[in-house]
């Protein structure tokens, strides 16, 4: 497998190309999950791009569906479909929908309405347990997901049911649609709260692929508890003028110059 850092960087480059081509999309939150996607799809998960519906595959759900440009290009890089299909982001003649749709090969759950991803992952883990299937389920959650009550119902239930095949990675990038998380709905120490519901909680640097790999290995070794990885991240990571800047959360159009400047940084990163 190629170097995971390099894969993550390629995800960032392709992601911004897709958002530029699509004339809209959410760059900030897409860039903050690139390293997680690299580790999941190119190291951790047992998947077969030639058989996207194989029932024993590991599952992945992007609950923060607006970050899908990174997921689409990661799937293309992994071989699920040609990169051109991912670059047709938000186009009427493609399947790279504005938020994940299951007609795209490799998408395991629809998302875009926050708060439903972890429950769907829980259902997959329950289906696996009931049928004696050994696959694991990974869900990336965003700050917005953590503000939805539905997510907390899933946290309570998964802890209660001791779902050790379920892993949630919380992309804590600290900015949401209109303002910082701290001003909109400050959630305090999310990891500590999740731990009280019976989860194994790990805190990591969400941009360090080696640390992410280790955390996922720790999740696999953890029995009778689901694992919640609090990933400390920077919104817009990798592009200096986007990092930590609220404007780049939203569905924005990237100019040619902005793309060129971004790619220059990423190509030399």
């Amino acid at each position, binding site marked *: 497998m190629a170097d995971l850092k390099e894969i993550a960087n390629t995800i960032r480059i392709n992601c911004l190309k897709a958002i530029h081509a699509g004339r809209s999309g959410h760059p900030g939150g897409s860039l903050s999950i690139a390293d997680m996607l690299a580790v999941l799809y190119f190291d951790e998960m047992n998947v077969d791009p030639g058989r996207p519906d194989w029932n024993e595959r590991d599952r992945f759900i992007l609950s923060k569906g607006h970050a899908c440009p990174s997921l689409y290009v990661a799937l293309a890089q992994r071989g699920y479909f040609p990169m051109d299909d991912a670059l047709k982001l938000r186009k009427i003649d493609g399947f790279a929908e504005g938020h994940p*749709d299951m007609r795209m090969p490799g998408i395991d759950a629809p998302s875009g309405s926050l708060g*439903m991803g972890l*429950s769907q992952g829980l259902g997959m883990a329950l289906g696996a347990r009931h049928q004696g299937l050994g696959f694991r389920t990974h869900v990336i959650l965003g700050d917005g997901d953590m503000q939805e009550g*539905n997510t907390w119902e899933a946290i309570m*239930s998964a802890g209660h049911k001791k779902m050790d095949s379920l892993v949630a990675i919380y992309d804590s990038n600290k900015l949401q649609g209109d303002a910082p998380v701290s001003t909109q709905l400050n959630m305090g120490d999310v990891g500590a709260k999740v731990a009280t519901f019976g989860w194994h909680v790990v805190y990591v640097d969400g941009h360090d692929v080696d640390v992410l790999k280790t955390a996922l290995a720790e999740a696999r070794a953890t029995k009778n508890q689901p694992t919640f990885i609090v990933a400390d991240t920077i919104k817009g990571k990798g592009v200096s003028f986007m990092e930590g800047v609220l404007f780049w959360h939203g569905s924005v159009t990237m100019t040619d110059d902005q793309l060129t400047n971004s790619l220059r940084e990423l190509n030399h990163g």
Partner: protein
Amino acid sequence: MADTALQYWNVGEDVSVRDAFGRILVHQAEARSDWVLLDADVAGGTGAKPLVTEHPDRVMQFGIAEQNMMAAAGGVADTGLIPVVSTFGAFGCMRAHEQFRTAIAYPERNAKLCCSHIGLDVGPDGATAQMLEDLATMRAIPGVTVVSPADANEFMKAFPAILDHEGPVYMRIGRSPTPVVFGADYEFEIGKATRVRHGSDVTVIATGVMVARALEAAETLAGEGVSVRVVNMATIKPIDVAEVVAAAAETKGIVTAEDHNIFGGLGSAVAECTAQHYPAKIKFVGVDDTFGKSGEHDELPAMFGIDAKAIFTACKKLV
């Protein structure tokens, strides 16, 4: 089919459809292994308790957290197992409506939702539990099949049929004792209405508990020389267009009868159908855009105008 072992009720008996739910769940748990029940701490209320007692391994318990249960059902379906989600109508068809839409219907997952506590049929629990909008909310979601059985026997026939139907289905479960209309030999088919009484002057298209009331009204009207056709519309979506058109073409008008708000349910579905295919006079018998209240299940229909007398009056206006 293991139908031989299944005991049906006698026509004319008063039976709660909840009892049919429990009976058919146990029967189907023993007949096939491809489904599980998802419950939110209301198995005693929906009628699913016998399954919990006899086959606990077939039940996934979520506690009182219906949004999680509904979205989780989408995930369960993704693994090839059929989730049968069961809760009260207000929770399944409204609180977790978006989860049903986005995590089940949009990805066309093979999941079933069976809700009790719908309509004034709920009785004493009052308005918050009397879901009068479920047919409207569920019918509005693309690709969802909506089923509303008339009695306990029809429910037991319909349940295996919805398990066999690939795709999302919503089905009503009645609560209060309701006269059994269909015998053990009745054959249920999704999308197919049944003519339970022949008649030529006017047609009552009824669903759920209103079918027995329509038959009662038709009998009274026969005494006055009015010939009433009674159609059981057990599938609200997709609606049986041919049967609606036949009623519009062959009789002087249609009375729709439902234990539901007059907006968005059976009456609306029938009117959409006639408007497009065969314009007809229609009278709507249903709850007139108001909330329910406490009272016995056999007291409320008269107060809210959904009893046999209301159907009788509506028919008289059309002949």
